[in-house]
């Protein structure tokens, strides 16, 4: 990953678009039809094997968050930005996403779910963590990710995870303890273990998506494959009656709570998928141009899609609930047949693809544009040596006053 | 030359330097450098030019220079400090290395061991190597460098050089060695010491010493000195008498076209060859005795004769890269190939340097006879030279150098420079004959005397305060 334009690999955009698509489908189906029908709906069937791909949306997305940050970091360093300005931009992005997460929760999931610790607050927290951790060697970051995964089961046990999920969703008291525990361990996307995904994406991104072939392809495959094998081993141990998944007696592969097998399997799966995508898509992008053309606008507007798809399918749900005189959340997860929800999801994706493709072609501002405007430092004029760090120049002006 | 400056409110020390050769000029230069106050220097020179044995005249037939006196300087820098080389370079004078050493023996050119072996057999090669090993053991490069100083070479055998040659060299090698060093020795081996003889052999070894000359003529050193010293120079003004005054000063009687003249000085430096010292009259009996003793100790005259030819074309490939070669003729003489000193010259210059008894014996012959004799000694490689002579010059240096510098038993450095130090401390002597009969030696001598005088002046000024 060296040149700025070459750093945005098509495989990254494709994987992110796939994650977004999966997310939209999962959310549409689960929010509109999660418990629909006598057999408990797809949600109840989340333990079913055919629903397994649904569990990969968040792992792919959070993994690629770390990888994208790594790319962004390299671009800033190539533009000779100072460490100060990079840290400031990272912290601003983190705080914006963190705050946006709360706002989103209030506006979409209603005020009582403000501290449900969804994916936006997770990514915001991750950005703040990476502002500090980016100074650490990759080995330490991977160790931190491994520690996050390894500590998750005992933390979940210590925190009493299942008590917060008795209703089938995250339910908490407005106390400091519950709010903090939700952020750390028991929420929808708590730090433990979800911090591991972006950290692995940050550390292994150069290995998986390296353009200059200095790292053999065998490494990422070996790592991903190894993790998948580990996941299978954990499942086998569970089936043999081991203590490895104490929280979920029904299934070793659960997303809520994220079981050890789930964590290992999804991390390994994302690494393998990334390697495979890089080996096929990036090696011959012209052959896959139609797919890349579909994926790239969606990938570039991931945040917009996230916000928009919730608004599109959740707000009508609340409006219908309110209109029928009951609690606005009365029809949550039982409103529609799963096939209808699925169709709506597909329709939304089609519309979103068109919309964001059009926005890209017309350079229409989006939420991402706003975020860059708010958070990133403007590019300084280039010197004769290509150094363009405005903060360095302004520091030089301030020096006499500082004395 | 600048006129002497009178120090405001004080007496100006007056020093006379008798002799305008390299010794006198070196003494004046060092006095200018070392004295802590202005000194009134006067140089008396009997001839109508400065320079003594450093003389680079020009032919009449063409504006080509040649060396009439000392043809080369000795570079001691491989072993130690070389003040003469440093002085020459400080004047910005370019130097040219001088290589050579081919010796004509029995009509054959011997340039190296292979030539020697080819001419006289493997035994001769071994003999020369053995002699060389003995010579190197007798005098180390450091001892060679320090020769002439108070440093004594304990390993150097005493005695005459002819005895050493008889003991250490086979007859064949002896002939070769005598031809090689005769022109430098300027005296028969029987008339010089082992040390001096060996020095003249070892000077051919680059580990001990190298040869060089000043590009454009060695006399440029004299010119450079003359333009830099602050002194009054009286040419064609020989000093006839040296006396003391009642107040302890020195009175010199000089003769010039203007007549006789007496002048008083605070100190006198006699920078003259031994033969010229003999012609001086000393008024004081003690001084006369001391000087007679000094002269007797150092009276070992050696003679040189220079024959130089201007040719109508350069010497060509026959000369090769060498600057000189040694001939057997005249008991051993040096043939200088001076064309190589000025590579762009359109004429050639060949010069013979005869030394020792041959030079003294031939000095009475006419120039034409000498030139004819010289041409007869030319090696076959230079046979074409006969028809190329445009002009010839002869210079006779009878008793101009010492064949045994320092005498059979060198005196201490101080004693040799102030022969009457106990009774007449203001009289000093400078000369190459006190050291090694070289320009390097006379520089050392001059530096010693100038340093001594300057120290005396400093001490005197402290006392008057």
């Amino acid at each position, binding site marked *: 990953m060296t040149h700025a334009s070459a750093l945005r690999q098509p495989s990254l955009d494709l994987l992110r678009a796939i994650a977004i698509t999966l997310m939209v489908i999962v959310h549409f189906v689960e929010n509109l039809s999660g418990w629909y029908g006598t057999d408990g709906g797809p949600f109840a069937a989340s333990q079913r094997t055919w629903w397994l791909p649904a569990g990969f949306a968040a792992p792919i997305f959070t993994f690629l968050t770390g990888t994208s940050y790594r790319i962004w970091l390299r671009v800033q*360093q190539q533009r000779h930005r100072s460490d100060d300005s990079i840290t400031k931009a990272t912290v601003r992005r983190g705080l914006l996403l963190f705050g946006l997460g709360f706002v989103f929760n209030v506006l979409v999931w209603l005020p009582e779910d403000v501290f449900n610790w969804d994916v936006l607050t997770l990514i915001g927290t991750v950005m703040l963590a990476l502002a500090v*951790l980016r*100074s*650490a*060697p990759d*080995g*330490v970051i991977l*160790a*931190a990710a491994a*520690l996050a995964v390894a*500590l998750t089961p*005992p*933390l979940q046990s*210590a*925190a*009493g995870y299942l008590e917060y999920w008795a209703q089938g969703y995250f339910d908490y*008291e407005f*106390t*400091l*303890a*519950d709010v*903090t*525990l939700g952020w*750390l*361990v028991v929420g929808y996307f708590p730090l*433990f273990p979800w911090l591991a995904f972006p950290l692995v994406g940050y550390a292994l991104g150069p290995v998986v998506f390296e353009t200059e072939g200095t790292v053999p392809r065998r490494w990422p495959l070996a790592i991903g494959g190894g993790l998948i094998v580990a996941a299978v081993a954990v499942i086998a141990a569970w089936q043999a009656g081991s203590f490895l998944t104490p929280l979920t007696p029904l299934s070793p592969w659960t997303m809520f709570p994220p079981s050890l097998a789930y964590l290992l399997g999804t991390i390994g799966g994302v690494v393998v998928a990334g390697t495979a995508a890089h080996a096929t898509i990036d090696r011959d992008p012209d052959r896959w141009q139609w797919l890349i053309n579909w994926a790239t606008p969606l990938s570039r507007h991931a945040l917009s899609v996230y916000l928009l798809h919730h608004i599109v399918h959740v707000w009508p749900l609340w409006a219908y609930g309110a209109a029928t005189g009951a609690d606005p959340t009365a029809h949550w997860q039982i409103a529609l047949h799963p096939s209808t929800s699925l169709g709506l999801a597909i329709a939304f994706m089609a519309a979103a693809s068109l919309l964001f493709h059009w926005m890209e072609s017309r350079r229409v501002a989006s939420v991402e544009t706003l975020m860059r405007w708010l958070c990133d430092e403007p590019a300084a004029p280039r010197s004769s040596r290509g150094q363009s760090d405005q903060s360095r120049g302004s520091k030089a002006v301030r020096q006499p006053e500082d004395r | 030359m600048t006129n002497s400056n009178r120090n405001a409110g004080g007496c100006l020390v007056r020093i006379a330097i008798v002799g305008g050769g390299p010794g006198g000029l070196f003494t004046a230069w060092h006095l200018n450098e070392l004295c802590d106050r202005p000194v009134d220097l006067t140089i008396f020179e009997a001839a109508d030019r400065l320079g003594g044995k450093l003389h680079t005249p020009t032919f009449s037939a063409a504006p080509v220079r040649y060396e009439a006196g000392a043809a080369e300087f000795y570079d001691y820098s491989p072993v130690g400090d070389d003040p003469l080389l440093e002085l020459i370079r400080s004047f910005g004078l370019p130097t040219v290395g001088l290589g050579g*050493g*081919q010796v004509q023996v029995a*009509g054959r*050119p011997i*340039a*190296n*061991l*292979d*030539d*020697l072996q*080819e001419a006289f057999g493997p035994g001769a*090669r071994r003999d*020369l*190597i053995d002699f*060389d090993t003995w010579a190197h053991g007798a005098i180390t490069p450091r001892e060679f460098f320090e020769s002439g100083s108070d440093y004594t070479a304990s390993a150097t055998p005493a005695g005459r050089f002819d005895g050493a040659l008889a003991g250490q060299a086979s007859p064949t090698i002896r002939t070769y060695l005598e031809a090689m060093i005769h022109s430098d020795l300027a005296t028969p081996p029987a008339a010089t010491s082992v040390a001096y003889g060996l020095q003249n052999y070892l000077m*051919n*070894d*680059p*580990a001990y010493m190298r040869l060089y000359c000043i590009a454009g003529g060695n006399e440029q050193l004299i010119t450079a000195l003359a333009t830099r010293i602050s002194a009054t120079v009286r040419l064609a003004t020989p000093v006839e008498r040296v006396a003391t005054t009642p107040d302890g000063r020195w009175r010199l009687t000089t003769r010039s076209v203007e007549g006789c003249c007496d002048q008083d000085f605070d100190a006198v430096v006699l920078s003259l060859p031994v033969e010229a010292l003999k012609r001086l009259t000393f008024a004081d009996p003690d001084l006369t005795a001391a000087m007679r003793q000094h002269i007797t100790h150092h009276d070992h005259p050696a003679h040189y004769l220079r024959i130089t030819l201007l040719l109508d074309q350069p010497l060509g*490939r*026959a000369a*090769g*890269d060498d600057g000189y070669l040694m001939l057997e003729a005249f008991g051993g003489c040096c043939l200088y190939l001076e064309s190589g000193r000025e590579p762009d010259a359109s004429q050639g210059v060949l010069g013979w340097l005869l030394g020792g008894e041959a030079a003294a014996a031939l000095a009475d012959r006419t120039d034409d006879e000498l030139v004819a004799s010289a041409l007869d000694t030319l*090696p*076959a*490689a230079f046979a074409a030279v006969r028809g190329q002579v445009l002009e010839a010059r002869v210079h006779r240096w009878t008793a101009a150098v010492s064949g045994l510098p320092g005498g059979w038993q060198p005196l201490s450095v101080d004693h040799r420079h102030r022969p009457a130090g106990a009774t007449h401390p203001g009289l000093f002597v400078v000369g190459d004959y006190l050291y090694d009969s070289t320009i390097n030696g006379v520089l050392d001598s001059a530096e010693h005397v100038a340093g001594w005088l300057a120290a005396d002046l400093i001490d005197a000024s402290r006392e008057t305060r």
Partner: protein
Amino acid sequence: MIARDHDQPHAADALGPHPEVPGGLPAGSMVRRLTLPPGRPFDLLVIPTADPTADPTADKAQPTNQAALAEQAQRWVRAAAESVAASSTGIAAAPVAIPLYGCYVIWAPSHGAVLGSPTRIEQLAGTLGEFAAREAELRDLEGRGDKLLATVESDAPAAFEFDDRTQAIRSRLAARFLEAVAVRRGLASLGPAVHVPPIHPPTLASQLAERLRDRTRLAERHELASDRADFSFQVYEACGQRAAEFGIARRQLGLEWAIVVILVAQLTLMLVEMLRFGSST
């Protein structure tokens, strides 16, 4: 060394005569092909001239027609050398010609010629061959030193500061450091052959060797090349020191971060237990 030893015979040349001998040369003339470091050929034209044993009184300084032979040899060497275009490091483009007591020696970096009596010719050829090898070795070291010097300026920042970006070129810096060491070693081992003092009494071989060294300024070139190699070595040595310091700092940093991560994990465990204990009571 040939130039030092009075009595030993000279080293043998590389074998293999070159087939193309110029026409009009005396019988016995040949072209020998030597191999110089680092594998370059050197063609030596050997021309025996008048045999002095036939007339012992003949002056070796001017054997018959030697001047014409010398001219022809010089033309051959010049033409051959120009075609190879071997001159590149400040040596005079024209071949170096040395008349030497009845012999004649011509040298150019890729070709040479010796003229002399049959009893002398082998000494001359051997000495010239040895000199050519030394000169070629020095020329090669000069070239390698020049290449290093060309990269020193761009690599010099790494001698002051080593960071993540410089890490990417670490292997390149290491290779250049080893090359600087190799060049220095080569110059050091060549030193005694270049700075050999003149011997006395001289032999023909020692006289020729001395003249060849003087005319090609071998000692000055060696000194200059050594100075440049020393400079490059110092820069790359400093780069190596910075790289080592950086590696140590990185490992220390890694350890510090590992401690931080472990502490955070421990604090998290403690915090979760405290919060859980607090909420349950």
